[in-house]
């Protein structure tokens, strides 16, 4: 289990996070919601090593860990899919999936091993791409998002963080990506989903964590919570 405890972060005069805590368990999708400026991105950055919090602790299976940079986070099994996809559009699916962690012997690429692994992974995730050897630029938005998510799985992570994965997608492609998120959970991964879209959140998450003005403002089991109570927690209106 990955736990962020009592995380605080100040930017100049702005207290972006103040004593925020978050639990993430294997096989569970947690949705992180909140208004603009609530501190969602800052919390995610602290967990993925992009920033270091002023105070607070991150533990993995009860053991405190130090996450000083994104590389530390990856080594600990925390993988992040950024909102801007961070794919190389000129490279094909295989090359993108293994970018920076190419299978190789000395410096020579093992094309066949990587393509085999890519096909296996995409099949398991039920991602359908007709030709995985064309540049990613030629794929649809949903397919590209799926590639970006599959890419996060290459290092066999424990936790996958998804920042607004459906923001730029149409209805059908959103459904594709939500299906993919469910399959990540079924693989036993912990998934942290940041989303503005409450319909998506309700469709795919097990638990909803609400941030408001840099503090924890409520936590719901998705199955039991009404849309109104979540919205009330986000806006701070009395429920």
């Amino acid at each position, binding site marked *: 289990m990955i736990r962020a405890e009592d995380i605080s972060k100040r930017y100049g005069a702005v207290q972006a996070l103040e004593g925020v805590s978050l639990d993430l368990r294997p096989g569970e999708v947690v949705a992180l919601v909140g208004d603009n400026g609530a501190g969602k991105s800052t919390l995610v950055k602290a967990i993925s090593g992009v920033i270091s919090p002023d105070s607070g602790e991150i533990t993995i299976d009860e053991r405190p860990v130090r996450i000083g940079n994104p590389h530390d986070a990856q080594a600990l099994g925390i993988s992040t899919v950024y909102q801007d996809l961070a794919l190389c559009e*000129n*490279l094909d699916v295989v090359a993108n999936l293994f*970018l*920076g962690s190419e299978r*190789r012997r000395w*410096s020579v690429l093992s094309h066949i091993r990587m393509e*085999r692994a890519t096909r296996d992974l995409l099949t398991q995730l039920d991602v359908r791409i007709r030709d995985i050897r064309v540049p990613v630029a*030629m794929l649809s938005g949903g397919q590209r998002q799926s590639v970006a998510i599959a890419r996060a799985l290459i290092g066999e992570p424990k936790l996958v963080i998804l920042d607004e994965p459906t923001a730029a997608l149409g209805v059908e492609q959103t459904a594709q990506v939500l299906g993919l998120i469910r399959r990540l959970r079924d693989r036993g991964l912990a998934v942290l989903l940041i989303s503005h879209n409450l319909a998506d959140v309700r469709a795919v998450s097990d638990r909803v964590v609400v941030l408001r003005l840099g503090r924890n403002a409520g936590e719901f089991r998705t199955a039991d919570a009404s849309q109104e109570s979540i919205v009330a927690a986000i806006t701070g209106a009395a429920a």
Partner: protein
Amino acid sequence: MSATTVHPTRKPYSPKQAVERMRRGDLGAWPVVGGLIAIAVVFGSLNEHFLSPENLTNLALQMAATGTISLGIIMVLLLGEIDLAAGSVSGLCAVIMTIMNVRHGWNPLLAIVVAVAAGAAIGLLHGLLFTRIRMPSFVVTLAGLIGWQGLLLFLLGEGGTINLPFDGFVAKLSDTWLPPWLAWTLAVALVGAYGGSLLLGRRLRLAADLPVGPAYWAVVRAGFLAVVLAAAVAVLQADRGVPLLLVIFAALVVLLDLVLRHTTFGRWMYAVGGNAEAARRAGINVTRIRVLAFVLSGSLAAFGGILAASRLSAVNQSSGGSDMLLMAIAAAVIGGTSLFGGRGRTYAALLGILVIQSITNGMLLLNVDSSVRYMVTASVLALAVAIDSLARRGSTP
């Protein structure tokens, strides 16, 4: 493996998808090959000498130096950067090599190694100014264009020309011809290696249960290479033989292509050229790749300069000057290297320089005035850049 196992095969593109690829500017080498055929037909019918073995051999000799510089330019173009200093660096390093060899009596091979190392060091300097100080590569290398030209003039001093002995090692480089048996053996070996690697790759893919194309396709491709090589060797053999210079240039093209496509370094070059931020987040040392690209560009420019000096048997104040740089850049772009980074192969240098050099050569044969020659070359370059720009627009959704 049982005979009943059905392996998935890669389906060919439907016409609709083929058109879509074309609309996105994913034309591969076809426009260039078409252009070459057009050039051969036009100039061949206007002047019977154009397609003669003697002239085609001269063409091969003229290509090697600028083509090598163009290879270096491709290394930086792949990153979406530019090296405007390549021409000056080629001249300067040729002068360094000549001074070491002729004035100081160094062993010619050592002089060549030192000159190429000097080119690498200059590339390193450009790369560091670009990555550390974050000067735009355009400005760094524009300063290099003028500065290294200045150093060349300074080193040449009063005389302005240094001759290389005609029977020396360096001059011999461009006056060495493969004996027929060696040329044919080389051609056969190349076709065998190419066909063999295709078939081996196919078997390995089958063993890993990956989709493959039909087996005859490997044979067709190897056969195509065999025809091209046989034609080239036969034509060159009808004159003085296959020039060593052409073999050196072609070997560099093939070697660098293998490096770009099959090593992590090559993969990261394309990644940085495609999306530097994505490459950085993937843990790739973007700065190192960028510096290495400039080092390669400087080294290849130096080597190209040495080949040019070998052809001329001399270096002088215009070594690496005049239109050499523009020809090298134009060749890279005409051959299909994108100015926007991330797209292109080293064969662009070979095809592009073939186009440019044969247009130049053809117009020289027809006694076309140099004013017209410049305008035609410029038009071809503009056309290639236009195709590149349209392709980029097509591929950004």
